[in-house]
């Protein structure tokens, strides 16, 4: 992975930088010991590591502002970090950068049930946002699978999705406002307690900008009343094509489940060996969940099962209890862990039009044979967001490179059929150099013009998202 050359002037200014940061931040919030900064050397994309120059953990918006102002004046690159769960290297530092972690900012600032919103500091974890309101019957809808650990700051940066976004949308559809600190320290408020922008929709472009436009310190989030209940059904098929056709028919029939999850045979087998959820040994497995009252759930499941039966399933298991529901979800939720037990893996995240599912799965199988690397598929079928897991051996010379080449081929395939490189994980460093396959130079130029406006010196997380060759001139390198 190519990263920008380290700026020796910044390295040389470390002592001065630390003194100035300590002057504006509380005791213990500036970490400069090389042993300790190593804790920030990578995120969940562990293949790439680089300890930052300094890590800071401010506790308030004002502290973030003061620290950024110093970095801006001194020309020091800054990499914002939520909880470090990015699978795309979104929080990967450079050796001359300051890591700005928001972990200490995790307060709930306001809950407003009458207007169905909550305001939090962005270091708060996704699940603990729901935790703050669930005793009153509400929840925060986006549910990335890392929700126990991931921070709202990272969710906003990556526009995170989750298993239930078929019905509830992703982060951008549930974000109402932010307090954001610009690279030069200016604090701005965008959006708030109302719906939709009164001018240009800046909130819409900030969400998903991978921490390149500003550091979001506070967020107003939409909360929703919890449904009365939810229940899944598990359906097995003997071919991916048929399972894909079933998904399409369910959607066309007007049933909108909250989740449609898909697993293929390699994934089912690995999961079964690991979690023993009692899954059938079949080619493709669907988990479809619906919500509502007991009677509504029964009615919706009846419709889904009727459609599913038309496609001759080899297995059909309707949950009748909370226990059965948990068992059905158990395998899906442990799928990544199960694959990790048998191998190192790389998780891709391309999205495709749902109708292309059978073709894309077949092509991935062919690529798997061609490269000699196993692939398991587990993904959100309702919205076409695939998660092929490519298995490789990190200790075997050349295997990582082979895996990356195969991953690139799969992502190009996603783009070819009308989809995109990443559905919910973000570009980060991982897919940065593939951007040219989805976007023309003019398309990328238009995006970079946004960054020019928000961060004219290109100091914020600048080695991400855009191919270095495209952003070099802007970063002054």
């Amino acid at each position: 992975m190519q990263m920008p050359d380290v700026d020796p002037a910044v390295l040389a200014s470390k002592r001065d930088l630390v003194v100035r940061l300590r002057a504006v931040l509380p005791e213990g919030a500036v970490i400069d010991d090389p042993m300790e900064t190593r804790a920030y050397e990578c995120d969940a994309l562990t293949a790439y590591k680089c300890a930052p120059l300094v890590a800071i953990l401010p506790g308030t918006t004002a502290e973030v502002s003061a620290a950024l102002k110093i970095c801006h004046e001194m020309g020091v690159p800054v990499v914002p970090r939520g909880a470090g769960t990015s699978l795309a290297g979104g929080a990967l530092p450079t050796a001359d950068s300051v890591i700005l972690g928001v972990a200490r900012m995790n307060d709930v600032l306001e809950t407003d049930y009458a207007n169905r919103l909550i305001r939090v500091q962005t270091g708060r974890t996704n699940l603990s946002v729901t935790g703050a309101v669930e005793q009153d019957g509400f929840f925060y809808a986006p549910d990335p699978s890392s929700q126990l650990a991931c921070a709202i700051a990272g969710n906003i940066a990556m526009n995170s999705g989750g298993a239930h976004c078929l019905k509830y949308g992703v982060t951008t559809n549930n974000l109402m406002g932010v307090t954001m600190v610009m690279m030069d320290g200016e604090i701005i408020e965008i959006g708030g307690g109302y719906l939709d922008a009164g001018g240009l929709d800046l909130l819409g472009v900030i969400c998903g900008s991978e921490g390149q436009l500003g550091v979001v310190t506070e967020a107003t989030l939409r909360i929703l009343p919890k449904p009365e209940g939810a229940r899944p059904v598990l359906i097995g098929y003997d071919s991916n094509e048929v399972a894909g056709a079933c998904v399409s028919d369910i959607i066309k029939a007007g049933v909108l489940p909250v989740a449609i999850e898909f697993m293929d045979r390699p994934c089912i087998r690995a999961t079964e060996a690991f979690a023993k959820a009692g899954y059938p040994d079949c080619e493709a497995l669907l988990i479809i969940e619906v919500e509502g009252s007991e009677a509504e759930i029964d009615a919706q499941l009846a419709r889904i099962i009727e459609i599913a039966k038309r496609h001759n399933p080899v297995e059909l298991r309707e949950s009748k209890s909370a226990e059965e529901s948990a068992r059905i979800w158990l395998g899906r939720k442990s799928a990544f862990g199960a694959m990790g037990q048998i191998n190192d893996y790389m998780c891709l995240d391309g999205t495709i039009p749902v109708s292309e599912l059978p073709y894309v799965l077949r092509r991935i199988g062919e690529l798997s044979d061609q490269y000699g690397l196993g692939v398991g598929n587990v993904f959100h079928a309702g919205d076409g967001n695939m998660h092929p897991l490519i298995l490789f051996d990190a200790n075997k010379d050349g295997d990582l490179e082979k895996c990356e080449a195969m991953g690139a081929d799969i992502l190009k395939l996603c783009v070819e059929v009308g989809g995109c490189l990443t559905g919910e994980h973000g570009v980060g460093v991982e897919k940065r150099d593939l951007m040219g396959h989805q976007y023309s130079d003019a398309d990328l130029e238009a995006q970079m013009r946004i960054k020019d406006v928000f961060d004219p010196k290109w100091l914020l997380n600048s080695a991400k998202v855009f191919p270095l060759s495209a952003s070099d001139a802007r970063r002054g390198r």
Partner: protein
Amino acid sequence: MMRPDSDAQLAEAIRDASGGLAVQGGGTRGMQVAGEVLSTRGLCGISLYDPGALTMVAGAGTPLTEIEAALEAEGQMLAFEPYDLSVVTGASGASTIGGVFASNASGPRRVQVGAARDFLLGVRFVDGAGRIVKNGGRVMKNVTGYDLVKLMAGAYGTLGVLSEVSLKTLPQPEATATLEIKGLDATRAVAAMSAAMGTPYDVSAAAHLDAQGGRTFVRVEGFEDSVAYRAKALRAALHDYGAVVACDGDIWAGLRDLSVMEDAQTLWRVALRPSDAPKFLTQIRQLPDGANASAHMDWSGGRIWIGAPMASAAGLHSALQTLAAQMRGHVTLIHSAAPMDLPRFQPESVGVARLSAALRRKFDPRGILNAGLMG
């Protein structure tokens, strides 16, 4: 008037423009500016519709009626219920899908499913320098690069002229039930709507009409049995607010397109926290220019439409925006029967205004696209 038929022609028209351009779809949205008219009507037609994937791709100039007819044939819809204010504005044109997204025009169901901007999956546009740009795509989940799609939605053509949009569709509900409570004042109405929105019964719209003695409406949609169950449960939940009756007939089209306010000579759109709406209305009514204002609350009170006679428009405009600023919301002047030289959009904070202006300069360096419309 220029009427390009392709991206290339659109790019050429903008590149070669010597002065300001008034970007126009159907011309139904009441936001006229000076300049040579640049019509998107030549950029029309549905190029892809995949009902099983809930996606459609169409030229920006495609008439809304054509889009809706195609969706109707498959039992689908534009779930955000785009409004068409021709009844109020008196416009004779046909609304286009590009205009719907450029103005982020969402109706009652916005509270349940999201706004127009949430259903826009991808765009192609030509910016003010004549550069053709695409962003997003035709899939529902896409975080590849910056989201210029959201930025273009609601930008009223000031950053670029949309040439193609791809959008998310949803199945039409099988059944609908509307409940009504009569005689509530604004405060009680917002409380009732908020109570309804706070239930798990998946309310798809909540609106209050000031006129006719005060009428408060709540809607549920879905499969027949489910709608019956939820309507019954809602009735019980709203019992404290007054007699809850079934409202037959389609009240929602009128609430969406404002035929309920057809006499308004000027029209504003207000966005607030719903619980601030009653106080906002009370304070407006106390003003000399506000006594004759008509009002209609949608989105559980989060959106207020205000109508007034032309004579009180100028005085009311600044009062509305001042009050909205105090309540941390915003007000947009959507229509006036006679031209008014006022800032249509809510003045922004210094920081946001500077960012917005800088973005406009980047995308429209000569300042020729709907110049002055948004600031």
